[in-house]
């Protein structure tokens, strides 16, 4: 009893205002033992680090104004790291310290610099702009990533060789008619030998492949480039494939990640050999393959299953595969794509993008042998509710799932997906500006059944109401220590459309006041489709999505609103509604509701 009282009084005593620190009166502490410990701890601390000074004001209080920006180099560089490139250029001459440090925070650049950097450069000639870009490049000593957009020339490579010695990633293009001076190239490779790990080569495919091209440079400088583990290259002729074989022989033990763009044509049709050479990389962990046939109208048969079997036996470490099938590619055998990949049983992540008509994805049953598969991404124009029906039985380990389709989906998909117990991240992309049969029921089902779900994006028209938001709030409150994110698009039902004036429409947070009361760990991004108000925005959104699948004609089975139909529908609605609007070009409204929503958010 007594102990109980004592405990309570202690609690009462220890209570104080949560956010306002209260000064405590100094007392005499008599605990010798712990004082000794603290003293000992301090000693051990001073051994390692000398007391640090972060502001010069403290060196001599008299001479310095405490309101002056007088940080030491380390902290100054950190603070200036949040500036944009334009600000860095303009503020270079503030003082000597800034001049020395201001460009050190730049880690990633394109060459030439983006033209939008400053309005004054719009009219500048290309040659002059390249010169200016090189001048900027010289100052960025800590650059780690560079993308050389025009073909690499001696000028820019010598700047890099001289000033940027910490490069980790280079993306470059070579033109064999304008060879680069070898001594510059070898100096660059030598200076960056320790840091360089990633090389991406974009060939100019129409030129003849010879010893001046990017792949042969990798072969020639293989001694220097011993730390390179990630290579990206495009192949377009049989001659090029010969170089690739040589490259594979030299680098077979080094490369962990390989990106290949295969452009088949009448000059390049050795599909089987290509797979054989890829399988030479014994330590390959990730493979990214893009297959396409560039010769006009001729389809090319690819024996995908044989290639997959070869990779499965030769590359035991291979766990991540991305396969993109583009124009005029046909998979031989009667097997659909997923079935022909089923021999890759070690996979942990698989991405399949089918961007051409006439290839079948097949059922997800084929993924059953991949017991470790935890990440799956499918881009397939004809993906329907039916495909995902048995997803929980075929790939029970999935933690990330991305689906992109041109079809109309319903809550059924969400019901099937919600049976995945480990799902953490789910993204669904359907045709923009088409409201799907997805609503409260599906979202609530997902939230209630997937205990690990943290990120859900429904990038398609969703019919949801306050029920969804209440479910989301409950979802985030269940696990307060994890951040949650939900994004979706919606189209205003007609009953909400009281006014034709877009400015008088109720914004989302007035329709659903719950959006302003979200818990700290929940972010909701909601994007409204304004049909008729944003003609341009809609056309580009649809066009961009169409390019994903290269839709040429409406998909056959009638479930879909075909692309052509879709366009005419949008145009009609636009022309009907835009009459009364003064500004028909307004982009769609994008709101982000996030932590501390104590103010009405601004449209993004």
């Amino acid at each position, binding site marked *: 009893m007594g102990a109980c009282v004592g405990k309570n009084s202690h609690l009462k005593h220890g209570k104080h205002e949560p956010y306002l620190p209260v000064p405590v009166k100094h007392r005499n502490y008599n605990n010798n033992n712990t004082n000794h410990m*603290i003293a000992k701890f301090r000693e051990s601390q001073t051994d390692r680090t000398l007391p640090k000074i*972060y*502001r010069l004001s403290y060196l001599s209080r008299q001479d310095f104004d405490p309101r002056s920006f007088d940080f030491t180099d380390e*902290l100054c560089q950190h603070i200036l790291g949040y500036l944009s490139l334009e600000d860095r250029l303009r*503020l270079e001459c503030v003082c000597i310290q800034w001049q020395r440090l201001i460009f050190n925070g730049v880690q990633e650049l394109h060459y030439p610099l983006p033209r939008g950097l400053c309005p004054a450069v719009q009219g500048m000639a290309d040659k002059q702009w390249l010169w200016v870009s090189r001048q900027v490049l010289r100052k960025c000593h800590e650059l780690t990533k560079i993308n050389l957009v025009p073909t690499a020339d001696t000028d820019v490579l010598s700047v890099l060789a001289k000033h940027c010695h910490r490069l980790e990633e280079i993306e470059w293009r070579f033109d064999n008619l304008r060879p680069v001076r070898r001594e510059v190239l070898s100096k660059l490779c030598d200076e960056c030998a320790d840091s360089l790990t990633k090389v991406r080569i974009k060939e100019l495919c129409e030129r003849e492949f010879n010893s001046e091209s990017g792949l042969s440079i990798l072969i020639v400088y293989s001694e220097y480039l011993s730390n390179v583990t990630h290579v990206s290259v495009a192949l377009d002729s049989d001659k090029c494939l010969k170089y690739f074989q040589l490259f594979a022989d030299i680098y077979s033990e080094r490369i962990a990640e390989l990106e290949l763009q295969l452009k088949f044509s009448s000059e390049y049709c050795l599909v089987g050999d290509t797979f054989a050479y890829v399988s030479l990389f014994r330590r390959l962990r990730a493979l990214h393959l893009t297959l396409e046939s560039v010769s006009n109208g001729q389809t090319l048969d690819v024996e995908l299953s044989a290639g997959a079997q070869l990779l499965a036996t030769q590359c035991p470490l291979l766990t991540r595969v991305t396969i993109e099938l583009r124009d005029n590619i046909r998979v031989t055998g009667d097997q659909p794509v997923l079935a022909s990949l089923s021999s890759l049983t070690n996979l942990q992540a698989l991405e399949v993008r089918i961007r051409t008509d006439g290839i079948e994805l097949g059922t997800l049953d084929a993924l059953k042998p991949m017991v470790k598969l935890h990440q799956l991404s499918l881009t397939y124009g004809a993906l329907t509710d039916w495909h995902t029906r048995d997803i929980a039985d075929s790939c029970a380990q999935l933690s990330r799932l991305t689906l992109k389709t041109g079809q109309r989906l319903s809550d059924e998909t969400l019901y099937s997906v919600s049976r995945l117990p480990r799902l953490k991240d789910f993204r669904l992309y359907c045709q923009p500006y088409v409201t799907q049969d997805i609503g409260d029921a599906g979202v609530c089902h997902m939230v209630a059944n997937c205990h690990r779900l943290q990120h859900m994006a429904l990038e398609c028209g969703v019919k949801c109401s306050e029920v969804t938001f209440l479910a989301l709030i409950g979802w985030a409150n269940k696990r307060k220590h994890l951040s949650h994110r939900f994004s979706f698009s919606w189209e205003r039902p007609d009953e909400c459309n009281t006014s034709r004036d877009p400015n008088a429409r109720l914004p989302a947070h007035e329709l659903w006041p719950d959006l302003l009361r979200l818990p700290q760990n929940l972010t909701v991004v909601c994007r409204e489709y304004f049909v008729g108000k944003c003609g341009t925005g809609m056309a580009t959104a649809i066009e961009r999505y169409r390019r994903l699948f290269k839709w040429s004609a409406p998909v056959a089975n009638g479930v879909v609103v075909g692309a052509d139909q879709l366009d005419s529908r949008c145009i009609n609605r636009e022309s009907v509604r835009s009459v009364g609007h003064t500004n028909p070009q307004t982009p769609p409204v994008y709101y982000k509701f996030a932590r501390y929503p104590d103010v009405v958010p601004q449209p993004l």
Partner: protein
Amino acid sequence: MADNADHIDGDDNEDVRAQQNLIKIKLKSSEGGIYECGLTAAKMSDLVKNMVESLGTDAVVTTEPIILGNEAVTDAALKKIIEWVEFHWDDPPVDHDFEDEKDRRNEELSHWDKQFIDVDDQALLFDVIAAANYMDIKGLVEVGAKHICSKIRGKSCQEVREMLKITNDFTAEEEDAIHKENAWIYAKD
């Protein structure tokens, strides 16, 4: 089974953190002021966290305050810092798995942080940044840095010098040379 286990673990962890924050420890500024702060909140500072871990929680709670000896930790700065960690200690951790979380560098400050850091006294602002850097509170240093950068965005060199009270230590020739080199960015059309 395993699923449930880490699920519960996480919740437990959260409760422990909340309970630990009821325990108050004392921090002493370089000017001698002593302030109370929740234990979990104070542990947002890596300096304090290391100290607490090597001394043991009990020792820290019952004994004399932790002395923050750096000159930048003035009374006013320490009060500000405690206010910040007491608000932020239960923030959800950054999940590096998600791509959009990686891009926090470019993210705007939250409304609360903006109001918090927008102080009139520039000496205090700089003290808070330097003190947060000394105490190794990465989130707060970032808030301060972003605030300064947002204030000098789009300003000219002279305006920045006046605002941040920086003396121009270039000679006229040196400054001209830099101006000439970057002339294109100042050019009007």
